């Protein structure tokens, strides 16, 4: 049966080999996750795997706090994970937890679990981390305006676990839809296909900017790589930016998270 953890990709980091991590790996696999465990070339592995990773677990050695080189390496890797904007659970000793977080407040961004690991607690923590972000994000509503139902459906498939998503296939339909939406359920962002028949993207944007009820809704153009320059020409209409139609699921989710924060 599908759950929030099914097919999710987990990257486990270790600074030194640990047999307990093997148990954690098995537990996560039983939960339906795809698990990769790495103990060397950690920077390269984070670079390589992070685009498709949903969650990182960093299993910290008992002597982390007392070993300056391990601590430095750990902090450097955390900085890299932050840059990649990935969720991470740190698993370490309670004895150095408080001091570590006091000295390095940036680590508060991550969830913490004490060793020895309670597998049931780990299961709950991982499920929680993989559940569609926050209530606030789930409450955001996105309208996709694209004349190609298949492409629109694909994008919706990618983002519907995180946002409420509606689809219309033309500009006039978009205006009609937006004017009917009650204020309490307003659309927070519009993904607008640049090239559409009859009424194209820029024309739709112009119409949106002329209506009181729609003029302030952020609009992102969906465009092919050959049309980037064309998009720049209509920046005077103040779209919030553009997304290439070749963008991956992670690209799109990261982009939307930034725009809707």
């Amino acid at each position, binding site marked *: 049966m*599908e759950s929030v953890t*099914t*097919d*999710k*990709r987990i990257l486990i980091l270790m600074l030194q080999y640990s047999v307990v991590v093997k148990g954690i790996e098995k537990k996560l696999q039983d939960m339906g996750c*795809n698990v990769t465990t790495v103990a060397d070339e950690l920077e390269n592995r984070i670079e390589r795997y992070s*685009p*498709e990773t*949903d969650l990182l677990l960093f299993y910290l050695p008992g002597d982390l706090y007392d070993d300056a080189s391990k601590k430095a390496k750990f902090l450097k890797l955390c900085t890299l994970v932050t840059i990649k904007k990935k969720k991470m659970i740190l698993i370490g000793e309670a004895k150095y937890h408080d001091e570590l977080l006091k000295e390095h407040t940036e680590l508060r961004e991550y969830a913490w679990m004490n060793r020895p690991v309670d597998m049931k607690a780990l299961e709950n923590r991982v499920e929680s981390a993989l559940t569609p972000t926050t209530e606030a994000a789930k409450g955001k509503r996105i309208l996709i305006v694209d*004349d*190609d*139902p*298949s*492409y*629109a*459906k*694909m994008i*919706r*498939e*990618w983002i*519907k676990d995180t946002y*409420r*998503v*509606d*689809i*219309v*296939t033309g500009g006039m*339909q978009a205006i*009609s*839809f937006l004017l*009917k939406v009650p204020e309490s359920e307003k659309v927070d962002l519009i993904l607008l296909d640049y*090239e*559409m*028949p009859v009424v194209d993207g820029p024309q739709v944007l112009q119409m949106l900017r002329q209506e009181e009820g729609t003029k302030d809704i952020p609009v992102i153009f969906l465009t*092919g790589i050959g049309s980037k320059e064309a998009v720049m020409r209509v920046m005077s209409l103040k779209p919030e930016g553009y997304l290439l*139609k*070749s963008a*991956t*699921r*992670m690209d799109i989710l990261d982009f939307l998270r930034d725009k809707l924060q």
Partner: protein
Amino acid sequence: MTEKERERFSCLEGSEIDVEVGLRNSGSSGSYLSLLKIFFESIEENEAQLNRLYNEQDIRNYTIKVHALKSSARIIGATDLGERAQGLENAGKAGDTDYIAAEHEAFLSAYSSMQGPLSALFRQKEEGEDRPEADESLMKSVYDEVLAAAEDMDCERLDSFFAEMADYKIPDGEAVLYEQLKVATGRYEYRTIRRLLKEKQTS
């Protein structure tokens, strides 16, 4: 690709679809599978549309259609098909009807060839399997709810109704209308749905 993924998508080996690319774009095999289903379910209709537009020499709309297909193809890893679509799109924009004439059949053949491998991924409920037939009151409820959802342009509700109704056999007398509503839902043609159901109400 993990061993599990390799096994899951083994039926696509040797096809026009590069599973590694598709998985990378979607981020997970579950998500990728959903996209492949969307792509698969649109092949027949898109093929028919492209043939019609080509035969009518409606190059403007033919170009728009191949442009749209290009993006979907690339997302699922059908890179070669995406490139062919790009070529046809460029030709359409340049008015190069000779290129389109030379490439149209080969393009459709490559597109159509994906149906075989993809159909192996998706098990369809066969006619004659043990599904209860939807009775008159259920069909009426469905039509009322579909009309309301179409008036709200609520694609999520519409999708969920048809997903639920997949467990039922549609009565013969309703099959044509039901299929029309399902096709219109897949295309987000809310106006068509409303028209079909209002015609039914007045008939």
